[in-house]
């Protein structure tokens, strides 16, 4: 197992180098001189030349890429053009908001998706089965940004139940160790902040959560249908086990492997969906940071955010593979 993990970690290196290469050459092909963007249109030629030298822009592209890779390996993506802050620090500041949102969305999508999928498979061809199919097809086809806007109109404007934007009420000041407000407030026993954070995350997480919900419900249903026809399920039923135990202990566990794969893959869609959801709900995460960086042509931040997203995605795929072995003891990695 450890050898497998090590091998997978080593395979990650060329993928990350490849990702860095794609991002580097894409960003370098953007028209316009980064030095001019940094200093402004009316700066002197000497100042521009100096900045170009400082940023290494006067060197050949391939040399620039080599230095870029070295810096990526050190976690150094340069400084933001707009705030002059290190990009890593910008990402670190925004990452907790994104992780809090995606994890809450994933929890919501997984729980509802699993319950819907299991119920649909158990009561095949019933109303709930048809309803699950409708929900999953609808969820996959729904533009998450439009769903967010509709949720705002309905639950923040017409019925003012949830706030329109942000992570906390502007009157509340709160700082925690991890930056994950929900977790930090729980750890500090500050339930007023906890309640406000849940209140703020509810709508964005609900909207973003429809992405995994649809796929998880669909995959759970088809995987459960396959397992429920197996001999061991008939045996469990014949032994007189209660149907709840047959479904949740015997069937679901065996049906989970493809569902976990879908969950892992969905995390990628969630990260992508987070870009749109964060933009709508003014959620201060990396998605919004990347959109703002593209608008401002803030190259170091664009590079940093995209490579970081890809890195997280690759790590999640690895974790999913490792998780298989825990769910299904028949899987042994050599």
């Amino acid at each position, binding site marked *: 197992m450890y050898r497998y993990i090590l091998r997978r970690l080593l395979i990650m290196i*060329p*993928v990350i180098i*490849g*990702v860095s290469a*794609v*991002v580097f050459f894409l*960003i370098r092909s953007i028209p316009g001189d980064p030095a001019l963007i940094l200093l402004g249109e009316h700066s002197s030629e000497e100042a521009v030349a100096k900045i170009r030298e400082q940023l290494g822009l006067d060197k050949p592209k391939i040399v620039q890429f080599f230095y870029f890779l070295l810096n990526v390996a050190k976690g150094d993506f340069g400084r933001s053009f707009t705030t002059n802050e290190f990009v890593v620090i910008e990402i670190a500041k925004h990452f907790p908001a994104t992780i809090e949102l995606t994890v809450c969305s994933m929890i919501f999508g997984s729980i509802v998706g699993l319950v819907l999928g299991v119920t649909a498979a158990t009561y095949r061809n019933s109303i709930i089965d048809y309803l699950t199919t409708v929900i999953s097809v609808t969820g996959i086809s729904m533009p998450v940004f439009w769903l967010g806007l509709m949720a705002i109109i309905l639950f923040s404007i017409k019925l003012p139940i949830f706030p329109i934007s942000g992570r906390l009420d502007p009157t509340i000041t709160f700082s925690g160790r991890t930056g994950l407000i929900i977790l930090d407030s729980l750890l500090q026993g500050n339930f007023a902040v906890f309640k406000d954070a849940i209140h703020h995350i509810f709508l964005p997480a609900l909207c973003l959560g429809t992405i995994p919900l649809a796929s998880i419900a669909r995959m759970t249903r*088809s995987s459960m249908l396959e397992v429920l026809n197996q001999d061991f399920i008939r045996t469990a039923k014949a032994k007189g086990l209660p149907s709840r135990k047959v479904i949740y202990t015997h069937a679901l566990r065996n049906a989970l492997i493809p569902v976990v794969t879908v969950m892992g893959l969905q995390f*990628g869609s969630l990260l992508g969906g987070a870009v749109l959801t964060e933009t709508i709900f003014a959620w201060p995460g990396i998605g919004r940071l990347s*959109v703002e960086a593209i608008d401002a042509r803030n190259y170091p931040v664009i590079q940093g955010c995209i490579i970081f997203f890809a890195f997280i995605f690759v790590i999640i795929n690895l974790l999913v593979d490792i998780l298989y072995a825990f769910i299904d003891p028949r899987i042994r990695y050599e």
Partner: protein
Amino acid sequence: MRRLFKVFRNKAALAGLLTILFFIFIAVFAEFIAPYSPYEQNLADRLQPPSKSHLLGTDDLGRDILSRIIYGARISLAIGLISVALALGVGISAGLVSAYYGGIVDTLLMRLFDVMLAFPTILLAMAIMAALGPDLENAMIAVGIVNIPTFARIVRASALIVKEQEYVMAAQALGQSNSKIIFRHILPNIVGPITVQVTLSYGGSILNAAGLGFLGMGAQPPTPEWGAMLSQARSFIISAPWTVTFPGIAIFLSVLGFNILGDGLRDFLDPRLR
């Protein structure tokens, strides 16, 4: 082909096809169906709620939302068509070459696609858009590029199975050229999974392009693209909620049409997944 039409005995697939045909119809006959020009501004009628003269209301420049949505169908269908055609062309070529020749070509192509798949789709599209510049044509290219690995993988996986079939070996034994074997014997036998992917990717492409439009990186004003319409209408969400409601419904219905048709095709071609 006649067998393929049996898929429409599935009511959902038929509903999907009819939805798509509806959007194709309004796109083709937009000039005759749309009550107004999609670009015609009438500031005296700005932000009017749905009424008899403007069935879906007007936007902040007094343009008729229904007309813009009807013309928008052209753009969305074109985005799907061009981006899927791009992904299909490159994906089929790369997948077939990879499966048939194997070796270093296969390894290199698959690693390249691994790298592309390491990006969340919309982010890769955003990065490409950042390089190409915000524009409708560039959005089509970006969405097409992000779809290439999916097509290449599906084509490769299907072609690897077909390659081992006896009729392919017989064709090789008869000394037929590689290109003839690939295009005459392998490609026609993997059309099924490709068709399913084309349908699903068409919906996905419309969704991704609308996302780019919404972020201001796709079609630019005054183009009546649905995502861009949503983006421009965002500021009026409180005073004129209809401006954001209807373009979203159009995106949703068109994507839904392609998705349920794709699902029906997949169920038909692989009944185990039903």
